[in-house]
């Protein structure tokens, strides 16, 4: 537990120092939001369609940011063989996995914190009361993206690939998260709460998915960082 905090604090400090990562992912997400909003501009004015656009824009932006973020967070350790130093220092692989996932999630949350308001402005959202609930759904999505992204990035960076390889590995794997997230966000935007059983159901799916992948990935991670 102590190691977990030390590792996350180190990652955040490293990010704060360079700042390059957060800025580049943020601009990247912003462009995704802009392009998607632009592409769907003609359907604006139609309430149902508008909700559809906001929900998908938010999640597609998250998906892209997730791919870039996970690669970079793992690359920090691969570069200059810091991974070996961490293993020598007795950091257990599961703790390292959880630390990397946490860093990843914090970064993604930071990005979303900036992206969501922009999306609201671009796509004329009017319901700000739902923000806490929206944050909750996005949190579940971020957890899923970080859990799967971290373990798959350990594989893709090992294989010498970067974002393009990672995206073909994780996007199919994350279809349930994307589906669940978009559906839950849509009902939230339409009804302002998770009233109907459908959205509750999607939330449950997200929670189960997050837990299952966190557990399994923290077990297999050991084998992915060995030499």
């Amino acid at each position, binding site marked *: 537990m102590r190691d977990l905090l030390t590792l996350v604090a180190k990652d955040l400090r490293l990010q704060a120092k360079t700042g390059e990562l957060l800025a580049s992912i943020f601009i990247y997400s912003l462009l995704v939001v802009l392009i998607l909003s632009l592409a769907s501009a003609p359907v604006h004015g139609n309430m149902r369609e508008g909700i559809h656009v906001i929900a998908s824009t938010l999640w597609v932006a998250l998906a892209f940011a997730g791919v870039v973020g996970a690669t970079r967070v793992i690359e920090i350790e691969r570069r200059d063989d810091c991974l070996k130093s961490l293993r020598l220092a007795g950091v257990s692989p599961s703790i390292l996995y959880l630390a990397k996932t946490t860093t990843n999630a914090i970064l993604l949350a930071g990005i979303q914190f900036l992206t969501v308001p922009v999306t609201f402005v671009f796509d004329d959202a009017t319901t700000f009361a739902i923000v806490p609930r929206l944050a909750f759904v996005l949190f579940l999505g971020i957890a899923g993206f970080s859990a799967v992204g971290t373990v798959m990035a350990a594989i893709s960076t090992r*294989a010498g*690939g970067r974002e393009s390889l990672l995206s073909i590995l994780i996007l*199919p794997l994350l*279809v349930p998260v994307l*589906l669940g997230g978009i*559906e839950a966000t849509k009902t939230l935007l339409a009804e302002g709460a998770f009233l109907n059983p*459908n959205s509750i159901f999607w939330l449950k799916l997200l929670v189960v998915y997050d837990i299952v*992948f966190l557990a399994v990935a923290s077990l297999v991670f050991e084998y992915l960082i060995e030499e």
Partner: protein
Amino acid sequence: MKALFRSVGIPILSILFALDIWMIFFYAPMEKELQASQKIFYFHVAAAMTAFLAFTVAFVCGIGWYVRKREVWDDVQVASVEVGLVFSAIVLATGPIWARTAWNTWWTWDPRLVTMTILFLCYVGYLVVRASLSGDARKNACAAMAILFGINIPITWLSIQWWRTIHPDIGGLPGTRLEPKMRIAFWFSVLLFILLFIPLVAIRSRMERAAKALRALHRERLFGGTE
């Protein structure tokens, strides 16, 4: 084993496939609405079930590799994934052909179509990673992917079914209520595909083992022996 398969296996499989085609076209009655187009279903669904079986075998092999690090787990794993991909390709090719006549469209967001496409993409990613790694790193990474993608099989399958039950725009595949003769022909096809799957995996695993031995010999020559 190879000789046995050549002399006995291939003739038997050929006869059984001829029998299967006879059963499909002459033994099973014609479907009233879909007419002859329904015949594709015997191959289509059988291939789909075999593909799922193949990916499940790969999943089990992934766990097997971590529990007992024997080469055979890795050999059978890659064999299952590749054969599974071939069967998925059959599914993805026959699906649209049938959909064109039945639903009058090549592609539709039918749940099972999506499931199969996602699985197909996942395991294509598996092969990409496999091609760019070697040694233990490759075996560890592949086992991790076989496990993580394997977990995703039921989740994806179910989530997409849930997704459609919430938006019941398109019904399920017709033909769930089969006439007895149709059912016999159908299960015969399924069993026959699985019967074809087993030798294919066996042959492919032997190829993998031979490839590994060949590479070892090559290295031996390159670096000199150690007596």
